[in-house]
């Protein structure tokens, strides 16, 4: 199982992204971290190049709908829709359903306990 943890857009807060990346690594998952301020296209390219099972997007700026949409569109455009996308960050309750509609497999709004996040990643990847 391989995961890309990615920071799309301009948001510079990477605590959550790095904590999830470290926890996944400890759980025996192969993890690639994109670094900050990647464009959706760069993230899609990296996911395909690295042949990951899941992309975990972290967005705290409020731009999660647009950025998630761009990543999912990008995966489709490259015929890589088998790569699952999950999203975490400051996601208001009303946007969770919206994200699911866009094709996001799972949403981790603020306050989601770390073990739950890791469990979902492992499940998504094993179902692929």
């Amino acid at each position, binding site marked *: 199982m391989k995961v890309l943890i990615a920071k799309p*857009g*301009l948001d510079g807060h990477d605590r959550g992204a790095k904590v999830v990346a470290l926890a996944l690594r400890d759980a025996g998952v192969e993890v690639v971290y994109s670094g*900050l301020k990647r464009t959706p296209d760069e993230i899609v390219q990296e996911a395909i190049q690295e042949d990951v099972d899941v992309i975990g997007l972290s967005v705290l700026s*409020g731009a999660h709908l647009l950025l998630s949409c761009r990543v999912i569109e990008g995966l489709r455009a490259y015929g890589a829709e088998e790569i699952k996308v999950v999203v975490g960050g400051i996601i208001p309750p009303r946007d969770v359903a919206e994200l699911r509609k866009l094709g996001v497999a799972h949403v981790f709004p603020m306050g989601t306990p770390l073990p739950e996040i890791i469990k979902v990643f492992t499940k998504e990847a094993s179902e692929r």
Partner: protein
Amino acid sequence: MKEIRAHAGFPIKPVYGPEDVADVDFERDIGRPGEYPFTRGIHTHMYRARPWTMRQYVGFGTPAETNARFKYLMGHGQDALNVAFDLPTQLGLDSDDRRAEGEVGRVGMAIDTLADMEEAFAGIPLDRVSVSLTINGMAAAITAMYYAVAEKQGAAADRVVTTPQNDILKEFIARGTWIYPVEPSLRLVADLIEFSAKHYPRSNPVSVCGYHIREAGCTTAQEMAYGLEIAAAYVELMLARGIPVDDFAPRISFNFTAWGKIFEEVAKFRAGRRLYARMLRGRFGAKNPKSWMFRTLIGGGGSAFVVQEPENNIVRGAYIALAGALSGAQTMALPTYDEAYTIPSAKAQLIALRTMQICAEESGAADTVDPLAGSYYVEALTSAMETQILEEMARVERMGGIVEAVKGGALQAEVARQAYLFEQKLVSGEIPKVGANCHVGDKAAEADREVELYAFDPQVAAAQVAKLERIRRDRDNSAAARALRRLSDEARSTGNLMYPILEAVRAYATLGEIARAMKDVFGEHKEPVRF
């Protein structure tokens, strides 16, 4: 008995007594308030002479919307401003830049040109209100705009009090709004400090932030250690330019958090003040007592707040305010209870302001200076914290110093490691959070529907872009182009970039154009991705 540890790592004993402070020398380690080494505070009478400045962090949408919120808070007794800019502004992108899509006016107000800054501060007299600007990578340009607005308002330069954050090293470590590689970024920091020291003597051209590094996950002792290392790096920069330390050090300020255990936070600030005083006097040879003073904003730290039962965050905020007061804050800002959900509502902002006012007026925390001095516990804790901070500073030196540690990413990796350790302690319950990992309520898993969410208006971007296009059309384009060329030329040379930046700002060059003029010369920072 259950073992309890400070966030800094050392154990806390159940009881402290005289034996724990046997090594503390009153004159050497504590002294009197307002006197070296300032352990007890930088002023003789602290809040009896003047309460701390209350400065909530505000900014969203267009400059006009932000201006209205500024006036709302000032109408309720807030005496100073603390400005939030949106991410495109912080990164030097115009509102119509492709990469700004979806981010315009979101986490702060959008600024494209001087016209926006004029609107943001319309009706706010900049010779009377002190304003801090949360801006780093673009600090030189945004501060230049601020100075230009003050000038247009007719404010005398020596009456203008502004504190641009201008702390790029902590951006590389924690907050992420870097633009250029480390060296040219440091040059810009120094240019703004030097320019302000010369022309705006009451401005505080750098605010060294431990705050964001702590928010990113480091411990209390690391927060202070990294802050002191960063301050030392900036002092070295100025000294390398041949500027005497007392010409700029009195205007260095700090920005720290106090959300942890109250007494540990107090000890952190008491230890930090004396370490800073010793560093400035001893290592850097400063003679002016003002150069020795650790002047700080103490803020909340949204990371202390939890999403479950959000009203409880109001109580957490009150404890933070108390810790800040007992720590000797010069300025205070609190996170708002709705911060885990949304851009703060006006109501939440007002509660935060009222919390500080209650702490200052009602609680008695401001009645006397450093009321915890002489407590066996707090003095012992202050000494323990000092030892720990010095150890963390030595670790940074072993990484090659703060600048090298940042360039290679070693410090970023350490902060991430600490964040992970902290998260594990939340999971295990070693660090308790009421409502999240203990005393969990019935609906803990559900988000609170009562929190009023900020209604982001997608029209903000359109309005901002229309204004930007109008300005590009109406300005003297050849003057703007000339100024931008001069800026690029000067960037290739060694002169202070504040002068050409000011010229460009006055010619209504856009932030994006100014950023690009320097990017063409400096290139962009390549993040050392380590975790």
